[in-house]
């Protein structure tokens, strides 16, 4: 499935680098600890988090993640979005919780 399919099904708001929506998604990872994501996330995964600061972009970039979903109605900071555009990282937001977002993505990937 492509990132775009998840955006449609989960009604996500795309906040940066919409060109990335054609990327294939091969998994998911849910964590708010950046060292955990660095250590354990897999290339091609969608990352579910409530972190909004700019370091999430570098973590997603270095791990080759498909995109970042910021949950719980939180909004990414402007410098986060600027960095995401520059580093070609797709950031999406949703008002629903991490638990529900992960559940839906898990079902779609099964």
């Amino acid at each position, binding site marked *: 499935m492509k990132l775009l399919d998840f955006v449609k099904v989960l009604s996500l708001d795309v906040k940066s680098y919409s060109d990335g929506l054609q990327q294939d998604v091969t998994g998911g990872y849910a964590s708010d*600890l*950046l*060292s955990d994501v*660095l250590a354990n996330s897999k290339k091609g995964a969608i990352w579910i988090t409530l972190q909004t600061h700019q*370091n999430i972009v*570098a973590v997603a970039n*270095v*791990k080759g993640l498909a995109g970042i979903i910021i949950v719980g109605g939180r909004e990414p900071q402007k410098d986060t979005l600027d960095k995401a555009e520059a580093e070609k990282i797709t950031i999406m937001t949703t008002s629903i919780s991490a638990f529900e977002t992960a559940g839906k993505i898990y079902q779609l990937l099964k």
Partner: protein
Amino acid sequence: MVTNQAIEGSFQLIGGIFENAGNASIQLKQKLTELGIKEDVVRRAAIVTFEAEMNVIIYAAAGWLRYYITPQYIKIIVEDMGPGIEDIELAMQEGYSTAPEWIREMGWGAGMGLPNMKKNSDEFKIDSVVGEGTTVEMMINLTS
């Protein structure tokens, strides 16, 4: 590996400048990928470099990160002018951290940095002098 020459690079890291976090890691990852080094090795090098950058940014006034790529190994050396580590054994324990609350709220400072660095290196050395700084040297083999 397409070259027999050592390739090196260095980064200056400034304490508290979070916007630069990950830059050394991203650049090293690009270089290693261009050199055709296998994905798992690139992944490990990127993880240890990122964590090393974070430690300087979070705890030190400033530091240097240098890397060397040879046909046999990747070596990453990080030297900082920071507070130093009083009890290295304790600092190496997973989950132990002296990071302040606001760093933890950012999702850093979970006590995973040094253990991640050790776990993903083939050789890991750490030296620290309280009041002077910390040096970490990591090596990842390319020949095995």
